[in-house]
Structures are given as C-alpha cells and as structure tokens.
C-alpha cells in the first residue's frame, strides 16, 4: 500500500479537475464546436459533440478523473442532460476553490461557504420558474396527417424554430422559405400506399378523422381541458409555496419588490416550449416534438379519442439510425423501425402489409439456448443403438422442424426475439413465408404484447393459443412523406399494430460519424421535454439563471461583514445553512466571490462559444456591467426579469443586439439543471476535502522510482 499526500496550498486534485473541464469548454451552450478524438496509435477517430461523450473517450485513469466521469455518468443516466453544465462548473469551481485555498481560507470554511451560497442561490432562482400548468398543444389537431402509417415529420436541414433564427440570422436570410415548404409538404402528403397497407389502422383513423381535421381552437380546447383554466398570471408565490418553503429575509424588504413583479411569465404553447428547450438543436427538437405529438395521438386513439394529459413517456420512444441517407430522411414513425442489413433478413412478399399472428420470444431463438440460470449437465452422454441419429447438425434440423411445426400449428407468421435468431431457422422460415426478427428490445416486446395480446415466452415449446398475438403488420420503411427519403429502399422495416404505444425516431445522416451525435441530440431534446412536462415548470434560461445567481451573490458578498450571528440571520435562512460548521463571516465574501466566479466563467464560455474568441473580452465587460447594475437595483431577480431579453441576447448572440421585443425565450429544465449544479459543487468539495490518495495493492516494487516521490509506504 502506498499513500500520496496532497499539498495543502496547491491542491493537485483541483488542478486536475480544472484541466479536464477545460477540455470540454467548447462543447457548452447552443453553439458548439464538435471535436475529433483521435487514437494516437491506431487509425480510429471519433466525432464528439457532447461533454458526456467526450469524457467517455478521454483517458481519465487518475482518481479525480474517475470521480468526474462517475459524476457525469450519474447525471446523464438520471436526466440525460446537463452534463456540459456539470463539467464546466466543476472546472470553474475547482479553480475558485484552489484560489480560496491560496488566499488562506481553511477548507471547512470553503465547504460551508460554498454550499450555503449555492443553497441561497437555489432559493433565489425560484423567481425565474415558469409554470407550465396552462401549456397546451395549440397545434394539437391541425398538424396531424390525415391517415396513420409510417409517415412523419420531415426535418429540413435548416433549423426552423425562432431560436434558430436568432442564432443564425444569415442563413435564415438565405434560406428564408425553404424549411416552411418542406414542413408543410411532409405533413399534408400521405403516401397512397400506406392507407391500403394498414387496414385496421386506417379504419381507426377514419373514425377520428372529423376531429382531426376540425379547425384548431375548438378541438384543442376539447382535447385538453386543462386549457380552460384561467391562465395564471405570474406565479412566484405559488412556486414558492409548492417548491421551496422558507423565505429569504432579505434586507431591504424583499416582499415589496416581489409584489411589483414586472411580467407575467407563462408558457402556453407547446411549440414555444419546445423551441425554448431546443438549445440550438432545432432539428432534433422538431423530431422530439413530433414524437411527443405522435405518442399523444396514439394514446388518444387507445382511449377512444378522449383527452390525454400532456406528458412524454420517453421509455416508449426508440431511435433507429440509418447511415448513408440524406438528413432530410429523418422522421418520426409510429411503431417500431429496425434497420435490416442488405444481405440479412429476407422479408417475404407475403408477410408484408397484412395483419399477422405473432409470437414473442424473451431470449434467443436457437437450438442450444437455455434460459438464464440453467446449467447444462457437463457429464451426460447419449448412447444409441444406431449411429446416424446422433449427428450434431441433425439435432438443429430436428429442432427447426419442431419450431416450424409449432408456428404452422398456430398460424404464426412473425416471431420477434429479444436475443439472436438461428440463421438456419431464418432461412427455412423464409421458405415458408414467415419472418423472424432478432435483437428486439424488451420494451418493444412488451409494447407489442400489450397491443397484440401475445404473452412473452422463453421457448417455442411453450407457445399455446393464449401466447399468440395478432394484428401486427410489417412493411418496408419508405422514408418520410414527400419523397425526402428516396433511396430508402429496403433499408429498414416498420412493425406496427393497432394501439401500440411505440414511437421510433429514424435518424439519417450521410456521414456515419455524425449519427451518434444526432442520436445524442435527439435524446437530449426528448429528455428535456419529458422533464419539463413532468415537472410542470421550467426555468427562464439562456444565461438568466446564472445571471441571477451572480447578482445575488454579489449582493450577499457586499453585505458588511459584521458579527457572525447577524450576518446569518440577515443574509441566509437558517434552513439553508448546511453542514455543521458555518462559514465565518470574515471569510464569507471571499468564498462567495469564488462561487460567483464559477458562473461568471460559465457565462463567458457560453458567450465565447457563441461569438468566437474575438469578442470574449466584450462579453465579459457586458456581464460585469449587468451584474453590477443588477446588484445595485436592490432586487436582482426583478432586474433579470425586466432585462431578460437583453441579457440572454447579449450572451447567446453578442453583437446582434437588434431584438426590439427580445426575441424568443430560452428555457431550462428545473431539476436536471439544479442537480447538475449540486453534483458539480459536490464533486469539487469532495476533491477539496481529500488530503491523500491511498493506492491499494502496490508495494515498494510496483511503484516506478520516478513516480515514487511523495509516496509513503506502510
């Protein structure tokens, strides 16, 4: 065992954290510069465009690197978004903590001061919450295609949202009308084929047709009763009551200022919400929004046309990546889309486009597959009087015979298996006009089990009449409506059933390297939309949150440092003061400034990414000026609300300050954002409090002499 101490003044862990975070700084915000990660030894290279993917590729074998990777992975697994924020703030705060150490602030004071500071900021940013109770899908019924089928929303190569307009004014000018046109065409057109192909579906669709084509306002009201509620004009009191209780007893009468809240902040339209949450990736958000609409329509059909709550169940959404097709071929389809390789699965003509009886297998469909936990007897010999019956491949033939017999007996033409499928069996089934598909996700099987009435079984021998489902249709994927997917050919197949709760986003890109990034982008948008609708609130984003925190910390730090107790009762609510030892009043301003510098760095990175390196200085002066005026105004929150458009414009598109009405709003999800902050600070404080590494299992001999400096042995 070896132990390595960490120097008190120059904390190595904090320095490492800061340098890791610096690597990801260009991946923050709506305007990102993707990176190529190149393998130094081989020809491998990967295109990364998110912080989470970057960390997967970096060599982080040091202990701090491992902790960072673990924190980012936990954030990504839980929320699917916020990894960039986490990485950036972890870096900024670790430099800030190192700076505090250098100034001689003791570790417990930094720990308590920073966590107190974050706690008060979290109470403060409640002011920027936008309630979504009244949000409804104003385009609920109009944008529905006339008939169901594998049609979807085509996505043009250019961003269509207003946010995109704000970000890329030049391109917008060049291609002003193109995106509009492509969007309409894909909505209105229904391929002649599909209506005929999906007969059961088509019938259901016709029943709902009048409702679907009715004019907007009345149907949407009927479809979502929530909309009839009188719209809440602003809401901060409600939010406070529901969210974080405990008031900030701010000096200078916070209540009074709160009463004259400048504007009513509500977001009433789903499209507006989606655009605000797209964070610069409008094409992915268009797909996510389309997936949401499709899912709601499916739910509404299942419930007989009734109203369905506005939620987004991402567990029933899948992606299918098709390299080599133009981006315009990306779309959202009802049902499950899976790619078929050119030489792979033959799809017999006869099984296409008619309802089939289906069997769902929850394991492999091979002769030697046994369920999990089954141990094959190692020492069993089979003896026989005649020799030829014992041939090995004979066993598989026999098994295939039996499977085909069962399939024929129950008139099953489609088998979906969770694991692999025996190739010999696939070939024999193709001859008898049956289709076998392997590697189908468990949730997809569950969805088809619900829709078709089938029960999942482990072995074909278990199949009985109750286990067989019906009404599943198979067709070749024909690309989005409007012919954008020409050449889609037989690249993918679509599985559908009446009432199936499944949506697949087909992502196409001519460059295979880009597909991963597109998939990540889609999921980030979908998860953001999901969290926003689940929590029924969003934050006003685009840097406003960070601005408010900066302003608030500035006010706190400027408070005269008097006796500890008075500062505590004046500035911080008791409930928010964390961890046993409170930060001494004399050191508090230093620590709070350190915390603020984290957000300042975050904002200037955003601005720098958006505007290019040249105007970084300009952006920093811009931030400094507004933070000072926010602090001077006495109530940073109302300042931020009043000046919102100017602030977010200044951060996200510096140099283009020509938004008289402020341009589109940007939104952030609540819990993912706040948790990313907490995780970043926790990571920094964890590293800060660590004074030594203990390397297990390495004695004197294993440590190389050049690195043995600083090691102590036991």
């Amino acid at each position, binding site marked *: 065992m070896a132990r390595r101490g960490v120097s008190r003044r120059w904390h190595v862990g904090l320095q490492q954290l800061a340098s890791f975070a610096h690597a990801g700084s260009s991946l923050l915000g709506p305007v990102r510069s993707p990176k190529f990660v190149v393998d130094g030894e081989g020809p491998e290279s990967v295109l990364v465009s998110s912080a989470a993917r970057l960390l997967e590729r970096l060599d982080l074998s040091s202990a701090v690197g491992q902790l960072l990777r673990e924190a980012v992975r936990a954030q990504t697994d839980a929320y699917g978004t916020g990894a960039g924020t986490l990485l950036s703030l972890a870096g900024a705060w670790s430099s800030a903590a190192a700076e505090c150490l250098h100034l001689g602030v003791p570790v417990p004071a930094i720990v308590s001061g920073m966590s107190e500071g974050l706690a008060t900021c979290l109470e403060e940013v409640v002011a920027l919450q936008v309630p979504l109770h009244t949000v409804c899908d104003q385009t609920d019924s109009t944008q529905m295609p006339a008939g169901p089928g594998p049609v979807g929303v085509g996505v043009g190569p250019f961003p269509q949202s207003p946010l995109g307009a704000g970000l890329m004014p030049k391109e917008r000018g060049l291609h002003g009308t193109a995106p509009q046109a492509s969007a309409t065409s894909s909505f209105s057109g229904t391929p002649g084929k599909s209506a005929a192909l999906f007969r059961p579906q088509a019938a259901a669709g016709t029943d709902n047709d009048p409702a679907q084509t009715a004019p907007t306002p009345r149907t949407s009201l009927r479809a979502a009763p929530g909309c009839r509620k009188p719209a809440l004009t602003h809401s901060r009191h409600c939010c406070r009551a529901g969210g974080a209780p405990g008031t900030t007893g701010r000096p200078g009468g916070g209540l009074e200022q709160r009463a004259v809240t400048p504007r009513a902040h509500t977001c009433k339209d789903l499209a507006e919400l989606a655009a605000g949450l797209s964070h610069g990736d409008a094409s992915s958000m268009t797909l996510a929004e389309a997936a949401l609409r499709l899912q709601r329509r499916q739910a509404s059909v299942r419930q007989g046309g009734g109203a369905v709550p506005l939620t987004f169940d991402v567990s029933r959404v899948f992606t299918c990546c098709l390299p080599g097709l133009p981006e315009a071929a990306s779309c959202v389809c009802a049902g499950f889309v899976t790619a078929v390789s050119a030489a792979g699965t033959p799809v017999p003509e006869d099984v296409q486009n008619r309802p089939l009886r289906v069997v769902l297998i929850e394991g492999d469909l091979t002769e030697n597959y046994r369920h999990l936990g*089954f141990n094959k007897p190692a020492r069993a010999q089979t*003896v026989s009087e005649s020799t030829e019956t014992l041939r090995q491949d004979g066993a598989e033939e026999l098994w295939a015979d039996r499977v085909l017999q069962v399939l024929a007996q129950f008139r099953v033409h489609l088998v979906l298996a969770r694991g692999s499928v025996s190739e010999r069996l696939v070939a024999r089934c193709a001859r008898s006009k049956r289709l076998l598909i392997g590697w189908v996700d468990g949730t997809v099987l569950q969805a088809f089990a619900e829709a078709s009435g089938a029960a999942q079984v482990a072995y074909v021998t278990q199949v009985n009449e109750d286990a067989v489902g019906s009404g599943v249709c198979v067709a070749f994927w024909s690309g989005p409506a409007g012919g954008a997917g020409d050449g889609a050919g037989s690249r993918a197949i679509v599985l559908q059933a009446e009432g199936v709760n499944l949506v697949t986003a087909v992502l196409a890109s001519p460059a295979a390297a880009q597909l991963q990034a597109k998939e990540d982008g889609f999921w980030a948008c979908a998860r953001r939309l999901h969290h926003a609708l689940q929590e029924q609130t969003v934050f006003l984003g685009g840097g406003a949150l960070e601005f408010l925190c900066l302003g608030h910390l500035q006010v706190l730090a400027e408070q005269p440092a008097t006796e500890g107790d008075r500062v505590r009762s004046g500035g911080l609510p008791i409930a928010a003061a964390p961890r046993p030892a409170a930060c001494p009043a004399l050191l508090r301003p230093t620590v709070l400034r350190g915390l603020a510098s984290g957000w300042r760095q975050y904002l200037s990175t955003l601005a720098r990414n958006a505007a290019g390196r040249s105007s970084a200085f300009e952006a920093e002066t811009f931030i400094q000026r507004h933070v000072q005026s926010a602090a001077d105004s006495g109530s940073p929150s109302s300042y931020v609300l009043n000046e919102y458009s100017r602030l977010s414009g200044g951060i996200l598109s510096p140099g283009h300050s020509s938004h008289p009405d402020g341009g589109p709003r940007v939104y952030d999800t609540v819990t993912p954002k706040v948790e990313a902050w907490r995780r970043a600070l926790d990571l920094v404080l964890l590293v800060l*409090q660590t004074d030594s590494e203990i390397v297990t299992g390495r004695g004197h001999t294993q440590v190389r002499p050049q690195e043995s400096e600083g090691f102590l042995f036991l």
Partner: protein
Amino acid sequence: MFRLEAKKPSLCKSEPLTSERVRATLSVLKGVLTSCYGPSGRLKQLHNGLGGSVRTTSQSSALLANLSVTHPILKILTTSVQNHVSCFSDCGLFTGILCCNLIENVHRMGLTPTTAIKLNKHLLSLCTSYLKSEVCGCRIPVNFSSTQILLCLVRSVLTSKPACMLTRKEIEHISTLILRAFLLTIPENTKDHIILGKSIIVPLKGQRVIDSTVLPGILIEMSEVQLMKILPFKKSDSFKVALFRVSLSGDLSDTGEGTVVVNYGVSLENAVLDQLLNLGRQLVGDHVDLVMCQKVIHPSLKQFLSMHHVTAIDRVGVALMEPLSKMTGTQPIGSLSSISPSSYGSVKDLCTEKFGFKWFFHLIPNEETVCSLLLGNRNDTVWDELKLTCETALHVLQLTIKEPCVLLGGGCTETHLAAYIRHQTLNKPESILKDGWCTQTELQLTTEAFCSALESLTGSLEHDGGEILTDMKYGHLWSVQADSPSVVHWPDLLSRCGCGLYSSQEELNWSFLRSAQRPFAPQPCLPHEAVGSANNLTLDCFTAKLSGLKVAVETANLILDLSYIIEDKN
C-alpha cells in the same frame, strides 16, 4: 522428482518498538487515521492506481479493509481495530488513534513497559468504573419516550462522516428516516426479550438524497417489463407464500466426477421439467398465491403458475432470503420433492412502487418488523459512504437499546475523563500505590501519558490550525479558530462546547489543552434540566466508545509488551 531444500532460518528481531522504521510507519498510520477524524476530517481516495473504481472515505472500516500493512505490529493494531468495528461499527478511528497515542507517549516519557502496562490497566479500570457509575458527568440516560436524544445520536453519526456530502436539511431528513427505520424493526408485542427485526438498505443510486424514504416490508427491484408480466395481482386480505432456496431452473444436480449415460430419445431436461410441473401442481393445489425463489424459476413453470393465477418471482438473491423468511414466516424450501404445509407463510398485501426510474415489487407484511430504507445519493462513491454510515447509525441505535445511555460527543467525554483521572491519581493514589510495586513518580508519569493520549486525540478533531481549550469547571472541550487574536475575552470567541451542552456565557475559566494542566475535579452528575433543554447535542454511542477505549488500551499494552518478532522466512 522431489527436491529437498534446506529451510531458511527464522528471522528474530528484539525490541521491535525501538527501531526507527517501525516508529516511522506507525506515525504514517497514525497520520492517516488522525487526518480522517471528526466532522471536518479530511477524506482519502482509495483506488488501485490502474483506473479501478475510486472510494472516497473517512471511515475506519473502509480505510482499514483496503490498507495492506506489512509490519506485524501494524497488523496487530489494524486487526484489533477492525475486530472492534465489526462488533460495534462506530468509534474505529477513536480506537486506532488512542492506541497509537498511548504507544507513542509511553515511549516518549521513557517509562518501563511492564510498569506502564500495569498502570494503564489500573487507569482503564478507573475510567470504565467511572463511566459506568451513577455520578459520571459525561453520560446521559436515554429516555425512550422521546426521540430527542436518539435523533441527536443519529445526527452525530451522520455529521461525523463528511464524505457523505449531506447538507443540513439532508442530514435532518436521513436522521429521521434512520430513526423511523429502526423503530419499525421493534416488534409491537414483546414478551420477555425483544427480537429486533431488520432494516434493509435498498439502493437508489443517482437520485436525490431528499427522495430517500422508508417503507415497511421488503422491496425487490425489477425491470418494468418483468413487473408488467406479473401484473395484475389479485385482491385478497392475505397471500399465501412459498419461498424456495433451491433452484427451480430445471437443471440437473451436479454429477461430480461421474458421468450420466442416457439412452437416445430420453431427455433429462424434460424429466426434470416434469418434476417441476408436479411441484407446480402441488403449489396450485395448496392454494399458494405467491412463489418466490432465491435462484431461477423455469419459464415453463412460471407460465404454468401464472395460468393458475399464482405470482412467481425469481432471482431474489441470497441477501433477501433471511429477511423474507423472517417476515413471511416461511421455511425456505430446499428440495423439489413434496412440500410440508408448515413451510408456507403469508403476507398482507402486494403492490408495485416506482422511485425515479426504478421499479420495485413491494411485499407488505402482517406484522411490521422488517422495513426497507430506500437510500439515494448523487453518485456511487458518496452513496457507498452514506450506506456504510446508515448501517453504523442503525447499529448504534441497536446498541443503545441494550445499554440505554449515551456519552457526550465532540471530544467532551475525553477531556472530561482526562481531568477526572488526573484528579483521582493526584488525590487518591493510595489504592494503586498500596502494593508498593510502583513509585509515585511512575504513577504520575503514566497518568500524564494516558491523559495526554486522550487529550491529543481530541486535538485531532481540529484540522485547520485551530486551538483546543478546556474549561476548569466541567472539563469540556472548546475550540477556537486559527489566527484568532491572542488577548481576548474568551466568551466572545467561543460559543458552545464540543458537545453543545454548555454555552460560553457561563462564568468559566479556560486554559489551552496543550499547556500544563492544573488538576481540578470536573463537576460530576449532569444537571437534568441542562440535558432536557439542549436540543442539538453531539452524542456518542456508550457501548461502542467504552469498548473502543478498552480495545485501544489493551492493544497498546500488547504492543508495548512485545519483545521479539520472529518471522518465518520459508
């Protein structure tokens, strides 16, 4: 071919403690332990240096389990601390540091080991009899009719582990949960002796601490897809349960060295499956509603059971078997042949729960003595630490129910005890000196070594250059920040003592702990009103601390007593 090799001679070292190397490694170990001690202790990153998982901790059990020490003396020390921790969970660092301090002090003062060992034993017995006596000034009886003291105890355990990364609000939440989980394990109708139930910690890694909760009964994690397959449950007041320890996956029992020979056309698998289906028929005939298996259930048996509306849950895992059997009153079944009806048990209700993105199958018991503590924390390393801390806190509560009193924490017990011992040996040395085997001077020196070992232990609570003071009335500990002005009015600088019982506004005299101590008699017998009113005390587990003290002194004595180390080099 055999080859005989001459045995190497054993290596014999005399007086191991005098060697410079031994002292150096001992002081490294002491440094590691000391820097972890207390609420502002520093953390250690344990990893293998090759990119394995990283554990950040300041707890002795995690630390010592990963330290591989080579020297026999260090081995004695770490093993006895580990043994203490495995029995009492808490006070491991206390034991380790005190032991190191004692060895160091005896050496520094140049005492002869035999006398020091004998005197240490005497001083230890003075300590234990004082701590156990009614007049003890640092012991509080626990009143089980209020939760105040128990909550303080749990909170003290949580705050002393900084690597859990909890805010004050989260500490409050988790302490309440731990106390509730503990109370749920106490059976309602008790006869002569109580048999405590069990609290199971269920991981909710990656979720917020504030989302942690306690539920009565047992939760089994399942994927959503699996759970949907066993839904819906039927409605009933009581569900009959069968619990299998043996695998129902239909595999053959291990044949060992032998070989099974079967005729062509005979399928062993089918034979076993037939046996399983017979078992299924018996279960259905006995009107069992829920079948659970530690290992795997054959899919065909599952299908058969679900056709007869019997819920089947497999892969429960060995960890849940004991609580499941306890809670449902089942005898785990170990064979596939017929089942005796007495091995069935029952549960009150079945339902499903969802926390974050995890789904659980929830068994609600008839009598609640088993509960599940669903614990969340932001990432793996802090979750591991929080889990260990919660286990410690639950164990400490169990120990407290056996011995219903607690000690003042925050270092106050140690300083108080040191003051008491100093006073006793100065004023009543007769009891020790009457046999004449040691002199007054030796007694005074050993007392000084013993007491300053206790005091410098409390000094390890301070990691940022602060000063430790003690008052001359109660003998409690007070700490001052570093760089405080030298000449001050003490009450302005100090607020409360380490355990939080006394405030500096009382008329007290303070002195630095490092400076020479003027012996005084610390005030015995805690005033009742003081204990009743103080809401936010730092407390320590009585049993764990007492045992830690004994283990530390006895281990130190053992190590001081070593005169040879004989190593077998073969």
